[in-house]
């Protein structure tokens, strides 16, 4: 047993007072959870502390909170681990963000989380005819959407979504991960309609700022941002939807610029994102408007010689010609193939054996004699990142 101090953010809506911090010292074994700590505080000191909780085993999704500023499940966070992230040795527990607070650690999920989930038509729209028995579906398809299905609707991803912070109407990680569960289900009849809807919505799949917060927050490995990217892949790759938000054009322009020049040509990227992926993209009205809008910036850039006129008009030539040819041929080879080859580590896990002979570097930054694979954890992530 050890002592831990919890600082809990309290708010009593009936008191008329502002929120305040409430501190309690509990004692439990270090590997017990923050939730158990809070429940002990409730049991021993103050039963009015409000927190939703039920299963204690990270499956019901009730106890989403922020611990030391990071979103997660209270039942899933060990006290000793939380202590490490604590300022001045006190573990801070606050309600989740991006959602209105009802009382103490309890937030109004209906107002934000569930509202967004309902936005994505979260039920199967059957492909007809419905078979008498089961639909015949390839094994890997079902395993694939199990990652989205693993979502327990805890709200941790919504809590800290940075896009939602500046754009509250963003549909958000939880709802979009749920949308993938249907878009990726071969039994659903409306894959095209679903992705088109979400691609065209200005607060849809192209409103995600790609910040990885939701991947970091999720206690179940759902990786919502990855699901959003898969929705984008379906929208552009499968259905070639040229959305009004410039998402497809941006992606298309980026890809073709790197294909042709080996590097990104920023000056072309912007106009093509608006006007379309070709040399003439910049002459399209949308691109013209954007260029006009950016004139002050362009002017200043030229003035300060951050960008020379040459740099703006001529493509980058830092990569030697023959290397550029190699790169272009790689693009053509991979894109030219019909079959799409993707590796989802959530499903496939990591190789078991050390394969020491194949390891290139002597792992100078890693401890002697251990490669990342040897110390790897099954299924979730390697204990050691590839960068160590």
């Amino acid at each position, binding site marked *: 047993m050890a002592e831990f101090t919890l600082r809990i953010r309290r708010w009593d809506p009936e008191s008329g007072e502002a929120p305040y911090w409430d501190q309690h010292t509990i004692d439990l074994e270090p590997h017990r959870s923050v939730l158990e700590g809070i429940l002990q505080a409730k049991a021993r000191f103050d039963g009015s502390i409000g927190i939703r909780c039920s299963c204690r085993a*990270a499956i019901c999704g009730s106890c989403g909170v922020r611990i030391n500023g990071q979103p997660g499940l209270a039942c899933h966070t060990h006290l000793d681990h939380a202590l490490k992230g604590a300022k001045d040795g006190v573990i801070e527990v606050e309600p989740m963000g991006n959602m209105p607070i009802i009382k103490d650690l309890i937030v109004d999920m209906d107002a934000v989380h569930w509202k967004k989930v309902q936005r994505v038509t979260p039920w199967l729209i059957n492909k007809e005819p419905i078979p008498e028995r089961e639909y015949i579906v390839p094994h890997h398809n079902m395993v694939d959407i199990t990652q989205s299905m693993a979502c327990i609707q805890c709200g941790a991803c919504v809590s800290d979504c940075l896009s939602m912070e500046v754009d509250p109407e963003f549909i958000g990680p939880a709802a979009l991960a749920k949308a993938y569960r249907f878009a990726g289900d071969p039994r659903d009849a409306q894959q095209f309609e679903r992705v088109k809807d979400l691609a065209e919505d200005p607060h849809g799949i192209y409103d995600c700022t790609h910040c990885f917060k939701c991947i970091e927050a999720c206690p179940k490995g759902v990786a919502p941002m990855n699901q959003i990217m898969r929705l984008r892949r379906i929208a552009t790759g499968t259905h070639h939807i040229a959305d009004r938000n410039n998402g497809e054009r941006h992606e298309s322009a980026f890809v073709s610029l790197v294909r042709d020049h080996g590097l990104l040509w920023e000056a072309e990227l912007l106009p093509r994102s608006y006007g379309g992926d070709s040399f003439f993209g910049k002459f399209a009205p949308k691109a013209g408007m954007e260029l006009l809008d950016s004139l002050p910036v362009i002017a200043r850039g030229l003035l300060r010689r951050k960008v020379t006129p040459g740099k703006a008009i001529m493509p980058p030539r830092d990569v030697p010609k023959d290397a550029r040819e190699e790169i272009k041929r790689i693009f053509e080879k991979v894109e030219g193939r019909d079959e799409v080859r993707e590796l989802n580590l959530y499903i496939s896990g990591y190789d078991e054996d050390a394969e020491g002979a194949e390891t290139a570097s002597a792992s100078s930054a890693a401890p002697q004699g251990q490669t990342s694979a040897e110390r790897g954890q099954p299924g979730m992530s390697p204990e050691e990142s590839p960068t160590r």
Partner: protein
Amino acid sequence: MPEHDVLIIGAGLAGQRAALAAAEAGATVAILSKVHPVRSHSVAAAGGINAAISLDDRWESHAYDTVKGSDFLGDQDAIEIMCREAPGEVMHLEHIGVTFHRNEKGELDLRAFGGASMKRTAYVADITGQAILHVLYEQLMKYHERVDRFEEWFTTSLIRDDDGRCVGCVARDIRTGDMQTFKAKATILAQGGAGQCFKPTTNALICTGDGIAQAYEIGAPLMDMEMIQYHPTTLVENGFLITEGARGEGAHLLNSEGERFMEKYAPNKMELASRDVVSRAEQTEINEGRGVGPDGSGIYLDITVVPRKRVLEALREIVNIGKDFAGVDITREPIMIRPGQHYIMGGVKTDVHGQVPGVPGLYAAGEVACVSVHGGNRLGANSLLDTLIFGRRSGEHAAERAKGMPIPKVSDAQLKADIARIDRIIARPRDGRRVSEIKDELGTTMNRYVAVFRDEAGLLQAHETVRRLKEQAKTAYIDDRGTVFNQDVLGAIELGYMLDVAEAIVVAALERKESRGAQFRTDFPERNDDEWLKHIDISRNGDDTPQVSYSPVTITQWQPEERKY
């Protein structure tokens, strides 16, 4: 005052399924839940759902396995219905979108499970309960115009009119503290089990026996209350469940001598014998000094024998649990488990339509009910099935019955009484015991005397303790005096429910002087069909003591025989 044809209390699998079935049958439906529906404990069910869908399988085989699993206490008419309707229900689930795993041919894959004579468990990795629950909720969102949802509403009482009919309930909006009477032509109880009477338990904090106690309170009969399932593989650390699916995939149970001791107890089915058999085997090994762990109170579950790729695909949750709660990589080392309280076979007595005898208008489905399809012991993956089959049947029957019936007249007497009761609890002076203390003592007592092995002395001790705690609960005080989200006062009410349920359990266990299924009496170690092939019913006497009676077991095809695995 909300009024509906069908009122459903509890939004787990049984409740949600009942709501959808009733709505489809044209009834006006309300569903109440004290937590958001997807937080219901059905979400924790892992391993799978049984159905004889394989073309090589027959529902009769499934039924026989269930009857045998129940140690012949199950009512065979109900079991036949459940097993016969199972394939249709699983296909229905598939059609509304449950993401069942496939085999190489793209058909539903089936895994092995405890007590089953062949592979007939459909599954979604090891999150089957979650998958089905979330898909049912998707349907409720789809049909939001047909089903009124009251999420985070706590039911305080059922209402019985002067003619003895159940006409609705009183419930509290947890968010605002506002209390309302809900009128309904039919009320379906679906609040689940009562694992919180035991400590530790695999059950969530919300499993406080609400429905069982509320039915008991208005005079409905409870049945088979002594039958408490101890799941063989719960984490020694904290009582968390490790799904039977692990053993279904081939995992072994080992004692301190490294032997697969199930050979001694169930040489044919080994680790996949019925749960009561496995739990008793483990407990015996532990009691006889062959347990593992620092105090020898555990048993090793060895999943390293299952191919790693398969573990990642089909047992992902256990990988997480092992890592997060026990610091163990289950693909490389065994994990320590022991038997833990998990399920209650007993509950509110019902017929095969979910109707509660003696209380017209009252239904029950799911773990809260006792039809009985599980008898003395439930097979793994039969609970998910039970909830859906009888949830559907209750919903359909209630909807049908509601046609042409007038909405009952309900006074606000119960509402007033409940409001007063809550006010009294809040006002209690701080000189009694704390609610949490009483709950802890209850749980420890039940786990000590009413567990895998029981005897008269222990049961009497338990009964005495429960009655003492009931007295103390009357003056137990709480801290929260507010109205917004007052979880404290609800905890005090739940404590009352748990104590009622605990008493019924102990009384029934004392009454059955026999060992059958999950009940093992060291003073009566043999099964005794001559005297005890019958159900024990409990109902409330006017003066708050449980009254015992018996009812017969329905036998159709299968005469009781010796039960060997």
